[in-house]
């Protein structure tokens, strides 16, 4: 297990997550605002509106301010010739170990937000599951993808 060893993902991930969190908060803000408006329009109790507002504030705070830096700090990965390890999670920490010769293929993925900050995610597929490392600098992601593909192949030949 990595226990905060290994490499971190890009610090800009914080920014990207803050933005996505912000967009999410806007969307849920619109929904909650709509509900609050209906409550007010039909003379619902005021305390219900304050509860809704408080819930929205908490949500926005958690997703925009509080969580992103923790997430970035907790994401770690290590890629070696025989295996790769991923560590993630704020509330619960998960360590994943994938032997290199089980890797079937690797994707480099980039959404519009990631692209804006020259970041990319890599997704590693085994026959049983997909494992993601989010928000790496694009060059690093491409290098890693090449490296994993190569090592996965080598390991495969050893196996046969």
């Amino acid at each position: 297990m990595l226990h905060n060893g290994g490499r971190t993902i890009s610090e800009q991930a914080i920014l990207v997550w803050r933005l996505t969190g912000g967009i999410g908060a806007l969307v849920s803000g619109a929904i909650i605002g709509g509900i609050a408006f209906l409550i007010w329009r039909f003379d619902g109790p005021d305390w219900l509106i304050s509860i809704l507002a408080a819930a929205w504030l908490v949500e926005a705070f958690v997703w925009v301010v509080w969580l992103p830096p923790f997430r970035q700090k907790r994401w770690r990965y290590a890629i070696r010739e025989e295996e790769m390890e991923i560590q993630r999670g704020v509330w619960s920490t998960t360590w994943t170990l994938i032997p290199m010769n089980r890797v079937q293929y690797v994707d480099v993925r980039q959404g519009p937000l990631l692209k804006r900050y020259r970041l990319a995610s890599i997704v590693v597929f085994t026959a049983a599951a997909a494992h993601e490392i989010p928000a790496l600098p694009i060059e690093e992601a491409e290098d890693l993808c090449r490296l994993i593909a190569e090592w996965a192949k080598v390991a495969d030949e050893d196996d046969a």
Partner: protein
Amino acid sequence: MTHRRRLHPIAILAGVGKELKNMVVPLLVIMAAGSRNDFSWRDLIVPLVAVAYTIVMGILSWIRFTYEWNEDNLLVEEGVFVRKRRSIPLERIHGISVTEGIWQRMAGVVQVHIEAAGDALGEAEVTLRAISREEALRLQRCVEQAKHKVENAARSEPPLANRPHPALFTLSMKEVWVASLTSGGALGVFAALCAFLSQLSNFIPYEALIRDLQSTWNGHGRWYIALFILSLLLGAYGVAIVQNMIRYASFVVRKQEDTIVITRGWLERKAVSVPVARVQGVVIHENWLRRFFGYASVSIIHAGGRLDGSGAGDVVLCPLVEKRRVASIIQTCLPEYDLGVPFSPLPKRAKRRYMLRPLVWLVIPAILAAYMERPWGMAALLVLPLGAWIGIRRFRIAGWALSSRQLALRRGWFRQTTTYVLKRYVQSLEASATWWQKRKRLATISIAVMPLGTRARVVDVDEEDAASIYRWLQGEKGDQT
């Protein structure tokens, strides 16, 4: 065997029959919705068109479906509007299941379902709906030969598997009966029944029914309703028993060279062959009833699609078997697995967490029920100690066993599940710990095996043990076989 051939014409009937069976309920709904008051011939138009279309399509797709195979490939051509040619290398075929459904038996033919690599894409499955038994056998033999050719290209002529193999495991009629009785399939039937009823909601007046129900409830009808539900459950149970008996009748397991062949079924006979090399793990299920009598059921995790008609990757090896016989059966079928490993229990400090876990989602409903239906509702609070007791049982059962090349995880209570996986079939391993777990130095271990989404896990293993299981997979270069 180079010229193209068609399936036996009974395939049309089998195919159309299956389609029509799926159409019955929607058609009934349409008809009932259309003819609110009086019934006229117009209401029959839609169903008649649908039925005619299905029949025509059935015939057309039979005409268009051709298959052939040579020494290396199986070629299938199909499609009425879009032509599709598919060629599957014989050595890539992972499993074959041969079914004799009712239609097929009328014509003395069999249905062959073929499972090949590239299955995750859902493309590498072929069903030959009606071919003669001899042809199915020939195809099976060709596949075996193609495989041998690849495996031991150097070795001389492969031995042809033709002599009868002794049965490793059979199920007597009495055991079929007991297996069906204790299978717990009734819940599935009940769910199917509910789904069916909700489909019919268009023309069953549920609202009036519920109103009636309420007035009956408030009157003296509670007992009637209870009786009605009870008989519904019993009925579902009976259907499940019959289903299982049909399914598990004349159950035989054989091992032919490197293939496990399971034959079973009464009205519909089925033969499933799974190459040993494709087996990803062994799962032993014991529900509490069977455990009480010392019985278990054994499945193998198969790295392919739905060969057995149940979930993907799940093939039943023994529907019901005395617990002490399991190890020897597995020993013969899959000698690489060692079922005699001693399990390590979870640490004492995990016990309280196991007791509390069922309570988390029981406390609020129980208290609500107790409050609303005073004073008799207080009985609902008895659920809480019961939940804690189940938690303790689960704690006692949970455990893990590690040997140099195999990991076994055990969990559950109502349905105790033990999964054995060889190291080289573990696709990835996950250790995780929540904040609460970390405080108690506990962790959760979870492994992923083929096919996609198959996992086994144990909650609240000692942190150090979790780390040692993690390292076990890590240090694997040393003992690759």
